[in-house]
Every structure is written in structure tokens, then in C-alpha cells.
């Protein structure tokens, strides 16, 4: 360890701390991760997305626009095994590790990313006092065989970038604006997708009567008089995906 030269890591950290926009920060981070075999960054906060208006969650990435759109359309964050593992993990892990524990829907999310040429990656979970948990996911098109030292280098630089961005953007008003419970949001989201109560019950594995009651509660909260009104209100209040 005595011969270890950490000057590149320090240089990257100092560079990131001087950046003043998200784009500059991501560019600086992307420049650093290149030599580790990664070329894509996805940096985001991991809150319960069902309970939070997505516009208020900090997502920054240099992923292809089509991939971002595809993920958004399919509400990928709800099933993404990498995001779900990051909520529980205290250490960095590879995408492959997370995929091994994924549900069928989760594996589809990972495979969708693969389809865009991002075949291998690593997630660095971010947990802190006085902050919402999040993570920095680094992706690439070739398998990186990283040493523990390299993982630690990436972890530190990602951590500095993540919290630098958080300070830059200010705190986000998450739970304060959440008006529906997770279950209510989930049901309303499916209503917005044109599903019937019976279909929602089948998808979620609950009773149709429960779906009906859940949607009734959501209607009461918004003063909505029918399903269309409920969906329109939920979108207007940023409670579900448009």
C-alpha cells in the first residue's frame, strides 16, 4: 500500500468539487470512470418511487435518451433490482449480483439496459444521515474485473460526486408532497394504464374488492368523481407517471 498512488483519485475529487452544474459533474465523473471500463453514469436518489412525485427525485445520467424514455415508459424504477438492492446494501455490488436476486419483471428491466449495449455495471449505494438514500450506477459494454482497491477508488469518487450534486440541487421535498399511500399509487397507476379492477387485482395478487376500496380512498383524497377524474388529478398532483 505504501507504493499506492492516489493522485488520480484526489485530482478527480478536486475537479468534481469545482463543478457548478450537473452536466459538468457528470462529465468529470464520466472522465474518471473511463479507465475502469465504464462509460455511462446513472446517479439517482432511491426513495419509494410509488410514494413520491418522480419530478422531484434527483436523477442525473448520461444514458442514451431512448433508454431513459424506455425506462420511464415502463416505470422501470419500480422493478429495477439494482435500485432495490441499493436500498438495502451497505457495499457496492455488480449489476450481475443484483440480477441474480431479481423478480421476472426485474430481470426484464436489466435486460432492457443490456439491449442498449450496457452489459455490465456496478452500483454504489449512497446512504447518509440527513439525506435520502440513493446510488451511483456505472455501466459499460464490457465485463470489468475490478480489484477491491479499484472499487474503493470508484466508491469514493462517486460518493463525492453524489453529495456534491445533492448540495447543488438542494434538498428535495419528497414525502411532504406525497398524498397517496404506496398501494393507492400503485392502483391508480394501473388505472391510468387502462386496467380494470379485476386486472389490477390479478397483477397485484390482491382481492378485487381491495382494489375497489383502495381506489375509493384515493378518490376521496382528491375529491375525484370517477376513474378518469382520479387519474387526471393524480397526474396533476405528480403522484403517478403521466
Amino acid at each position: 500500500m505504501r507504493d499506492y498512488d492516489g493522485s488520480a483519485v484526489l485530482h478527480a475529487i478536486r475537479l468534481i468539487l469545482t463543478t457548478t452544474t450537473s452536466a459538468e459533474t457528470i462529465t468529470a465523473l464520466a472522465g474518471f470512470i473511463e479507465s475502469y471500463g465504464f462509460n455511462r453514469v446513472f446517479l439517482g436518489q432511491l426513495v419509494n418511487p410509488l410514494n413520491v412525485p418522480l419530478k422531484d427525485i434527483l436523477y442525473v445520467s448520461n444514458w442514451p435518451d431512448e433508454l431513459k424514455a424506455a425506462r420511464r415508459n415502463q416505470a422501470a424504477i419500480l422493478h429495477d433490482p439494482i435500485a432495490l438492492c441499493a436500498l438495502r446494501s451497505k457495499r457496492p455490488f455488480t449489476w450481475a449480483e443484483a440480477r441474480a436476486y431479481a423478480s421476472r419483471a426485474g430481470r426484464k428491466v436489466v435486460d432492457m439496459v443490456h439491449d442498449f449495449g450496457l452489459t455490465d455495471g456496478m452500483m454504489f449505494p449512497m446512504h447518509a444521515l440527513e439525506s435520502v438514500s440513493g446510488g451511483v450506477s456505472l455501466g459499460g459494454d464490457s465485463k470489468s474485473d475490478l480489484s477491491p482497491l479499484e472499487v474503493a477508488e470508484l466508491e469514493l469518487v462517486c460518493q463525492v460526486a453524489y453529495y456534491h450534486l445533492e448540495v447543488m440541487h438542494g434538498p428535495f421535498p419528497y414525502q411532504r408532497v406525497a398524498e397517496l399511500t404506496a398501494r393507492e399509487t400503485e392502483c391508480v397507476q394501473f388505472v391510468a394504464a387502462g386496467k380494470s379492477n379485476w386486472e389490477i387485482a390479478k397483477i397485484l395478487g390482491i382481492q378485487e374488492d381491495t382494489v375497489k376500496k383502495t381506489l375509493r380512498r384515493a378518490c376521496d383524497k382528491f375529491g375525484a368523481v370517477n376513474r378518469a377524474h382520479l387519474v387526471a388529478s393524480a397526474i396533476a398532483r405528480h403522484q403517478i407517471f403521466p
Partner: protein
Amino acid sequence: MFKIVTPDTYNEHQDLLDAMHQMRYRVVVGEWGWDIPGIQPGYDKDQFDTDATVYVIVRTPEGEVVGTSRLNPTMRPHMLSDLFADYCNLQPYPVGKDVWECSRFVMDRSLITSPVDDFRVRCRIGLGLTAYCLDNHISRLSWLTHQKFFNLVQRVWHTEPLGLPRRNGDDWAWIPAVSRIDEATFDRQIDRYRNAEEIVAEYSGTRQASERSHVA
């Protein structure tokens, strides 16, 4: 706000120091499960509680010790030099008259009734550290910070890591770091203390956040 106990005032504050060491044991050993060799049961006082150590202590209105931290001069043996020198692989741990080491940043959350109290106790310990540094021409503080605490340190003090994160198994990592202390730091901390309710509300969004602090 906070009490600073320096070596020349140990005698007048012996009861307070005893309560502080007992609180540290309750939290550090009882709650965090640390195994600290050579300490007495119920009383966390180790080899880095020396005759040069300075303590910042925060009490509840009832006088119970709710928060504390300790400062040691780096010109003498300290934690980074004696125990964690190999953690500092990015840059050497700083040593000098104007560099002190901060350790045992501990809060007894069983005495804290709301997130705002929690935030304010942490602010008060931080303010005590900065106040002592400013009064004694200390321009840098070195730490071994818990990964979950690092961003907070980074937010309050201008901070650079001294080494890469290190962890045991799958647990959280530790990061050695050095922070710059100046008057702007103190102003920033005062602002955070003053705006505690607002800041906590922004992060937690809970009703508790708007409750008034119960810690004087």
C-alpha cells in the same frame, strides 16, 4: 449551547466528565457494539482520552449529557497516527500545531425526542468544535468518519478524504478525512442551527419536524 472542557478545567467538571464517559459507553459499546480494549465496564475512557484532550459536551435542560466529541492535538500520538495510519493512502494524515483530531462524536438518541432536537444536538457539538478551533488557532480537523457521516462533514466543513473507504465485510465503510476550519464554517453552522426546523422539514417532511426543540 455547549460546554467545552479543557485540561485546566477537568477538576471543576469531574462529574460532567464522568457522565460523558458513561454516556459514551452506553452508546458506543451498548448501542454500536464496539469492542474497545482496555476500558472499564460502563466507562468509555481509552488511551486517546489523555491529559491534553478537549471535550465538547452538550446537555439537556435537565443536565443530562446528550452529545459529545473529543479533540486531540496531532503533535502527540492520536488515532490516525497510532491506529489508522494505513487508512491514509491518498494523502498523509496532517500533523501540526494547527491540526487537531476529532473523534468520539457521540449522541445519546434515547434522550432526544424529535428529529429537530437530533439535528440541533449535532449542530451544537459541531459548533463547539469549530468555536474551540477558532479560539485556539486550529485551522484543520482530521477525522476517521463513518461513511454515512461523511457527507454531513463535507456539507459543513470544506473536507477532503485522506484515504479510500475501508470496510469490514459487507458493513459500512470508514473514510479518513481532513476538514478546513474558518469563520465562514462557523457562520454556516450557525445558519444551519438557526434554520434547523426548516432543514429537517425539507429532508424528512414529517410533522415532527415542525415541533419545537426540547433541548435547550
